[in-house]
Each structure stands twice: as structure tokens, then as C-alpha cells.
């Protein structure tokens, strides 16, 4: 296999990568679950905590002022990095998606603007490729409101069936929630087409951007969706922080979700009035140091250049897919050709359970994810209960892909399966 040129070598920026596992160097191919964090992110958090830490948006003392500025600068940085005018901090993508579902539920129960209120029989549309985080909140919302959940099916090659989508999305559709990139297949979904269908139906569009934001240039405004959710810990940032991006008019009309401190104007014992977005969605103490850490991650990625990151990961992906196709008994989930992808591939090894494959690879220092990757319906669709997933990040190298492929080739022989 010819070596693909890497435009940057960033391994030294990530302290954890010098680990060894079972005496061999760690090959971390589980960034799809959670990414590793560069030193600048750790430094940003520690710097804040040891120099400026104090409550934001409250109090007039000097530290509080500094903290508030750093926190709001972080918002501007991350929103700017993602091309969004408005960013609501959340604890992560799961929270952000639940926020939207519950806010719609609240509208339905007469709290706040009725713009997004649902009536029994209204339809919510998701795709068969969704992570549980962008599926179950909608199932539950449907169950609570009498709305109906409908699903855009996925084809054998892992691409969404757009013909079916055109049938599923219609007059009764009020919400269309879909992932930008499947965390299992690594395929970039046709956002423009889905958004056009949803818009024609007058439906709200909710994008799960968890697996796109870390890997490709992301421009919220250009995508044309109404809302997008993402997690910091998957994009080189800290745990416990993420966000909801939103069009200003949509955030203005979406009722609050969590209630509590720092999101109100007046409060009596009887009732409360709420600040405008983003504050009305940010009840209680926010993940302040984490937001500042996430801003450092955004600046770090911006410094690398997301075009370069994407090209780097695309090269790794091609090397990986080519290698996987050569190993006997390996079946790639959603092996569509000619589609845009990020550096994620999931596969089945005939005759060896995913868990055993993962164990074998771990013995060679290779960390992959095994299981249904929180996308059980998608696995069911492909006739599996579990698969093995390898996922790359900015720090992944060609050599690591080769170590992985080499180890994988030894799996079936070890378990005495196949030729």
C-alpha cells in the first residue's frame, strides 16, 4: 500500500498517545466514541481554574468579570468555528437533542410559544441510521404527545433511501431529525436533500452533528438546518460540554427546557419569566471551564484547518477500507462507493463475534469499539447484534491503520475460523 502524505504530525500534542497496552504502543481507533485531548485543551482548563475561576454572569467582583468574559469568548469562538450565530451550551449532544424534544413537548403542553406544539397524528421523522440519542428522545416525545414516529430507511449500501424519504416526509411532518454522519457507517448523509424535503413540508430540522463536527469543515449557516447538536468530548474537547446551534428565530420560539438560576428575568413564588436565548436554555451553573477547554479545542482544530483534517482522515479511511476489503470474511457495513465519508468504518468478521475480535485486537494494542455503538436498529437492519468499529482522528497515522489491518488479518486464523 502506498503511503498517503500526512499534512501534519500532531501526535506530540496528545500526551496519552505515548501509552503502551500489553507492551505494544497504543493504537487508538476509538475516537468515534470519545476523542483524546491535546495538551492545549488541558492547559486552557487548568489555566482558567487556577487563575480566573469564579461564577459567571453573577456578581461584580474582578474574577467573576474575567470568568464571564472568558466564558462568553469561548461561546463566540466555538459558535464561530461552527459557522453559527447562536450557540447554547449543553452537557453534550444527548442533552441537546433531549432539550429540543422536551422543549417541543413543553410547547405542546402550553408552555411558551405554540409554534412547535404537536397535535396527535403529527409526524416526527428520523432515519434508520440514527444513534439512540437521536431516536429514543423522539420515540418518547411521540409517546407523550400522540405524535407518530416515521423512519427513512437505509439501503443495503448504507446510503439513505431518498425516494422513500420523499414519501415519508409530507404534510403531517413537523420535525425531521437526522444525523449528519452515521457513527457506524461513517457515511455523510445528503443534508441538502433532506433539508429541502423538510422545508417543503414546513418541518423543523434537527441535525445530529456529533460525528461531522470533529472531522469536516462544518458551516451551520450554510447547511440550512434549524438546529444542530454536538459533543465536545468527540472533538478533542472536555467531557461534560457540548452545544445546540440554532437559527435565532427558532431558538426564540422554542420554550425553555431545564429551569433554575441564571435563565430568568423576574421570579415570584407563583411564576417565572425567562431571558432570551441562549440564556433561557442555560439553567444553573454552566460547564464553565469545559466551555473554555472546548474553545481551545476549536482553535486547535481551526489551526490545523478543517479542510486538512478532512483530507487527512479521508486518506486514512480509504487506506482502511481498501485494507478491510482484502481480508477474508470481513464485511463492511454500508460499503457504498462514491459517497463522502469520514474516518469511521464498522464491520463484521464472519464466524468471530465482535467482542472476540476486539479482544484480539486489544492484545495487539489496537483499541476499537465493539457492540452496537448505540445504533441497535441499524445493526438489526444489517442482521447483526454487534459489529467492530474503527474510527480515526487528527492524530491517527497510516502506520496505525496498517498495524490494525495486520492484526485483524490474524483474527480468523486465531479463532480457527475460515480457510
Amino acid at each position, binding site marked *: 500500500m502506498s503511503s498517503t502524505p500526512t499534512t501534519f504530525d500532531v501526535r506530540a500534542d496528545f500526551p496519552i498517545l505515548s501509552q503502551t497496552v500489553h507492551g505494544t504502543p497504543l493504537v487508538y481507533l476509538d475516537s468515534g466514541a470519545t476523542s483524546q485531548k491535546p495538551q492545549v485543551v488541558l492547559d486552557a482548563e487548568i489555566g482558567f481554574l487556577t487563575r480566573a475561576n469564579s461564577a459567571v454572569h*453573577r*456578581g*461584580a467582583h474582578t474574577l*467573576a*468579570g474575567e470568568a*464571564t*468574559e472568558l466564558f462568553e469568548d469561548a461561546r463566540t469562538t466555538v459558535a464561530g468555528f461552527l459557522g453559527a450565530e447562536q450557540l447554547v451550551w449543553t452537557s453534550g449532544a444527548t442533552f441537546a437533542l433531549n432539550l429540543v424534544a422536551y422543549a417541543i413537548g413543553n410547547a405542546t403542553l402550553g408552555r411558551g410559544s405554540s409554534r412547535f406544539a404537536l397535535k396527535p397524528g403529527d409526524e416526527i421523522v428520523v432515519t434508520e441510521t440514527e444513534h439512540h440519542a437521536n431516536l429514543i428522545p423522539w420515540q418518547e416525545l411521540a409517546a407523550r404527545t400522540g405524535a407518530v414516529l416515521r423512519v427513512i430507511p437505509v439501503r443495503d449500501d448504507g446510503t439513505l433511501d431518498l425516494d422513500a424519504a420523499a414519501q415519508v416526509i409530507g404534510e403531517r411532518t413537523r420535525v425531521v431529525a437526522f444525523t449528519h454522519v452515521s457513527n457506524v457507517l461513517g457515511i455523510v448523509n445528503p443534508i441538502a436533500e433532506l433539508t429541502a424535503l423538510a422545508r417543503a413540508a414546513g418541518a423543523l430540522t434537527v441535525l445530529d452533528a456529533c460525528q461531522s463536527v470533529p472531522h469536516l469543515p462544518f458551516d451551520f449557516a450554510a447547511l440550512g438546518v434549524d438546529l444542530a447538536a454536538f459533543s465536545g468530548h468527540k472533538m478533542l474537547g472536555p467531557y461534560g460540554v457540548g452545544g445546540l446551534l440554532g437559527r435565532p428565530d427558532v431558538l426564540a420560539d422554542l420554550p425553555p427546557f431545564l429551569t433554575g438560576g441564571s435563565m430568568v*428575568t423576574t421570579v415570584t413564588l407563583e411564576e417565572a419569566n425567562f431571558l432570551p436565548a441562549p440564556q433561557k436554555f442555560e439553567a444553573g451553573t454552566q460547564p464553565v471551564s469545559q466551555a473554555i477547554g472546548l474553545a481551545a479545542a476549536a482553535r486547535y482544530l481551526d489551526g490545523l484547518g478543517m479542510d486538512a483534517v478532512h483530507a487527512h482522515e479521508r486518506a486514512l479511511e480509504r487506506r482502511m477500507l481498501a485494507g478491510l476489503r482484502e481480508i477474508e470474511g470481513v464485511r463492511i457495513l454500508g460499503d457504498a462507493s462514491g459517497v463522502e465519508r469520514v474516518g469511521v468504518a464498522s464491520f463484521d468478521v464472519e464466524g468471530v463475534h465482535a467482542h472476540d475480535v476486539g479482544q484480539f485486537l486489544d492484545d495487539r494494542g489496537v483499541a476499537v469499539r465493539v457492540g452496537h455503538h448505540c445504533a441497535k436498529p441499524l445493526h438489526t437492519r444489517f442482521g447483526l447484534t454487534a459489529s467492530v468499529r474503527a474510527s480515526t482522528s487528527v492524530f491517527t497515522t497510516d502506520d496505525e491503520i496498517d498495524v490494525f489491518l495486520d492484526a485483524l488479518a490474524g483474527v480468523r486464523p486465531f479463532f480457527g475460523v475460515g480457510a
Partner: protein
Amino acid sequence: MSGLEGLYQELLLDHSKRPRGKELAPEEGRTATSHQHNPICGDDVTLRVRVTDDGGTIRDVTWDGSGCSISQASASMLTEIVEGMPRAEASALIDGFRTALRSRGEIVLDEDVYLDAAALSGVSKYVARVKCAMLAWVALEDALARA
């Protein structure tokens, strides 16, 4: 002048203790009212303005409110400046005030234009207090937009 004395100038403390125009005139034909509130510290200003019949000139700015010395003094100082001022001029005045207040001490307000309110220049070094000083000015801006 540095530190606290730069922020709390004599003139400011004087206005906060003896506020001018602090008695809301009754509503009538050509008045417009704006209520502004800072939820963080509870500063509160209700400001009412009357414009001339042709809508071009500001008359009778009155207000009521409660809050910190800066918010109250600022309202008091404002009422003194804008009486009889053409609308367009008031807009420019507010813009200039906002720019100076957000300048972190870089821009000092011109005493010839801002009169006593020039004493609020020191607030711009205290980011957390800028909102306090702006409250009445935002109220005027808002009221004029409706007048």
C-alpha cells in the same frame, strides 16, 4: 484618577443621591415609555419621553427606578442632556455613549457633549458595570423607537 475614585466620581454620587427627572410624568398622546431591567443585579429603570407633535424633538424625559448608584446616576444625567434635542442627535448620542462604555477605558466621553454624564467614562473599565450605566440609555433608545 484611578480605581474606585475613577468609577465613583463625586458627580456620579451626587446624581445618585439627588436624581434629576426622577418622577414619571403621566402618559399622554405623544409619550412613549420603556421599562428596562437588569436581571443580574435587579437594576430597574422606567423612562418616559414625549416628542413634539412633528415627532422630531425630544421633550420631557422623566423616569423612575431603583438600583445601584451607577444606573440611577446615569438615568439622572441622561435626562439633563436630551431635553429639547432632535431625535437624530439623540440616536447619535446614545451610539457614542455605547461605544465609549464598551471601550474598556480607551474612549473618554466629551464633557461638552455629555455634560455630567461624561463622569461615567470611568465605568467602561468595569465590564460588569457597563450594563448598569447603559440601562437608561437603552430605555431612551427603545422609547424613541416607539414614539
